[in-house]
């Protein structure tokens, strides 16, 4: 498989055009994806990547343009026709039945025949074969909700393969994975490619693009602006192509100037709904004017810690103090009144009401503030004006406060949350995964804002599974493993040291 011999194209998109009202999401897109290759697509938030893939998968219909699969023009009306044409999609938000087993999920909708028993036996065999061929081990009888996210994703891939997918689309697949899970996913993708499958990978992580793709295409504001052989490009070039200017991949920051302790956690223990201890006797302080980062592999108690501090989850023992005063019993509204802002990890379930219009979300949690209304009433004009200001300042696209939040791209949704929490000018800011699904230009922007908060004397607590992010922002780093803080390092700590601590190996 030399790169020079022209492979036949698996997919050709010719002149694809799509508008949503006034938003021109895809402008006359041409794209050729070679058979048996991994093709990366990158671009800023709202560039139109997901829209393009949704057209290929039949979720949307293009206004103009043609789709050719293996040289033949096809009309893809819905996901069924896409599957019939050999296209499979792994959604960022998995489409699995949580309380079904792996096998049941894989079979669902493709049971084959009237008698379930017969179908089950042959499906089990086929599933086993797929798992062995592609290194996608999962227990066929495990119930989905009990599987780690990485394995759930494998089930999504198995589902597509089971339906005979020759082309696999993955839209930001690593956002929810631990580094080890991501590595495994890439191994699987390579095996799939080597067996002749075609893979389209959308991601914001240029490192992943460099590591795994053969070719990479760049989208900007609805247009396809460049396609490069991965071997012949660099991270810097790609970043510039995406944003149209040079990007700081690591934000400059001066020395911290820590002041008084604003937020303290004392012997905090938090249990999850099943009674399992998730945060185990954790203590630390955050001072005014410093960023404390909490590093750790996802699922080691960081989420529960954040929720406890934010007042969403009741700790089972221990104390949280703000300005030296215990805040047990305060709910999130009470804590906001004390000047605590919270950018939650999960914007879809917590940070936003996706069915609301943008301006409604830009006051969520602060809807009692005097500037948004008088007495029991909301002042819609004031809300919209305020939202417009944030949209302009944070470059949220499209700049329309009346658009449904679900219709913003992932990264722009995140900016809505960040703008809301930071613009309130809080005293303390707790942040979970601030840049999940956010493009590099916006990451630079959000990182700058976080550092500005620090320099303005706010106490910032940052949780992220991105070690790079923790290292480039934090003044002090706490490492969490299995619910405990297993060590503290300065912001300059090396990747290696932190990595070992995160794996629970060294302190």
């Amino acid at each position, binding site marked *: 498989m030399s790169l020079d011999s022209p492979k036949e194209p698996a997919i050709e998109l010719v002149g694809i055009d799509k508008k949503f009202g006034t938003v021109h999401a895809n402008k006359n897109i041409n794209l050729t994806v070679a058979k048996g290759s991994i093709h990366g697509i990158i671009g800023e938030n709202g560039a139109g990547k997901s829209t393009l893939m949704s057209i290929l998968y039949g979720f949307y219909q*293009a206004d103009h343009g043609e789709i050719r699969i293996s040289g033949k023009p096809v009309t893809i009306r819905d996901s069924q026709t896409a599957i019939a044409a050999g296209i499979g999609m792994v959604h960022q938000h998995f489409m699995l039945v949580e309380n079904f087993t792996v096998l049941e999920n894989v079979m669902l909708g493709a049971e084959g025949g009237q008698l379930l028993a017969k179908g089950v036996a042959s499906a089990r065999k086929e599933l086993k074969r797929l798992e062995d061929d592609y290194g996608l081990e999962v227990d066929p009888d495990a119930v989905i909700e009990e599987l780690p996210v990485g394995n759930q994703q494998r089930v999504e891939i198995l589902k597509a393969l089971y339906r005979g997918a020759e082309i696999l689309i993955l839209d930001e697949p690593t956002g929810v994975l631990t580094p080890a899970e991501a590595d495994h996913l890439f191994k699987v993708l390579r095996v799939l490619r080597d067996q002749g499958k075609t893979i389209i990978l959308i991601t914001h992580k240029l490192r992943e693009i460099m590591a795994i793709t053969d070719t990479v295409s760049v989208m900007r504001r609805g247009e396809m602006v460049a396609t490069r052989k991965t071997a012949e490009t660099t991270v810097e070039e790609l970043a510039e192509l995406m944003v149209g200017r040079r990007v700081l991949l690591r934000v400059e920051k001066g020395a911290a100037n820590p002041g008084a302790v604003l937020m303290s956690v004392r012997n905090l223990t938090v249990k999850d709904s099943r009674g399992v201890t998730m945060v185990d006797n954790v203590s630390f302080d955050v001072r005014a004017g410093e960023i404390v980062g909490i590093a750790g592999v996802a699922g080691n108690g960081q989420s529960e810690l954040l929720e406890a501090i934010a007042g*969403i989850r009741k700790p089972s023992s221990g104390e949280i103090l703000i300005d030296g005063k215990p805040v047990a019993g305060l709910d*999130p509204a009470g804590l906001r009144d004390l000047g605590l802002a919270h950018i939650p990890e999960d914007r879809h379930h917590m940070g936003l009401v996706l*069915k*609301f219009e943008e301006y409604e979300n830009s006051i*969520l949690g602060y809807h009692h503030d005097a500037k948004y209304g008088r007495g*029991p009433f909301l002042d819609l004009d004031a809300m919209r004006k305020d939202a417009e200001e944030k949209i302009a300042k944070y470059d949220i696209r499209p700049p329309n406060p009346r658009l449904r939040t679900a219709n913003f791209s992932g990264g722009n949704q995140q900016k809505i949350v960040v703008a809301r929490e930071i613009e309130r000018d809080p005293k303390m800011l707790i942040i979970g995964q601030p840049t999940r699904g956010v493009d590099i230009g916006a990451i630079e922007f959000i990182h700058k804002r976080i550092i500005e908060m620090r320099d303005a004397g706010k106490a910032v607590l940052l949780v992220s599974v991105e070690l790079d992010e923790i290292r480039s922002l934090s003044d002090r780093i706490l490492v969490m493993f299995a619910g405990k803080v297993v060590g503290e390092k300065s912001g300059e700590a090396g990747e290696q040291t932190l990595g070992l601590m995160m794996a629970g190996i060294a302190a």
Partner: protein
Amino acid sequence: MSTVSVPLPAWINYGLIPLLNLILAFFFSGLVVWGIGENPFEALQLLLIGALGRGEGIGFTLFYTTSFIFTGLSVAVAIHAGLFNIGSEGQAYLGGLGAALVALAMDSYVPWYVTMPFAVIGAALFGAACAAIPAWLQAKRGSHIVITTIMFNFIVSSLMNYVLVRVLIVPGKMAPETRTFLPGGQLPKLDWLIAMFGGKIGAAPLNFSFLIALIMCFLVWVLIWRTKLGYEMRTLGISPTAASYAGIRYSKIVMITMLISGGLAGMMALNPVMGASARLQIEFVGGAGFVGIAVSLMGRNHPAGIVLAALLFGILYQGGAELSFDMPSITRDMIVVIQGMVILFAGALEYMLRPAVVRLYQQLTGK
């Protein structure tokens, strides 16, 4: 599956699709009418003339509409907070007791317009009280509101039997009902409203509570879309996790929402009790609470939609009654079947036609 996410213009979503559903419902009802040997077109004509042909018919139609607006609003308010209140029937029934007690206490001393505000409050309070216990059980104990509100329909029914048969019955009379209210406890007829359009109200019981219903529509709209409380209700209704993140207290919103919902259901009693019969009678609600569910569903939980849907059901009720009178082979039960068709197509099967409409729309607009 894939068409659910396709955005359609508002006129298709709120105009064309409900209209098509309605046509479908009438089509199948027509088949039934035709099946028993009557002419469906003639039946439809009789129904429409019965409901809208004369002032008196219109008066009856709007009388039914009034009741359905109240119960439709009751269901809609709860749905906005993610609660399915099936107990509007019982809440309205108990609301009748509240209205009647006020009327009985005041009617011999003051004119109707003095009694009215107290009666509105009495009806609302009793309706709200009936919703309070299911609300508390949902908020604090996690008992499902659908189950508890249904159970309360039965509890209220038994309670009202007891009250009417043992307590409020006029001594020496057989009928389980209160005495007739004096004019000070009655709501005046809206004869002038019908007269404005050149009709005569005749025996139709259309009364002042129709105007109260319209005012409530406006107030509910303000509540849901213009107040902080409404914002909190909608947040909770769409995303309980976002609500908890935002510091919106679940139990508080559940309680307040259900009290408002129960209060609106209770006010429905003003219409039959103080407007039409001028006394509290057994089983006066007559299913209007359940119709409210269909009305709210059809009206997309929006006050404007609820008025239209309530009007539709008012037409079906009044026109249906006239129809079964004019075409004896079409019995009351047949009318119930036709109403059922409307509920089925316009409410439950709301999304049945959507994919086809989406496809057609895409083809016509070349998308």
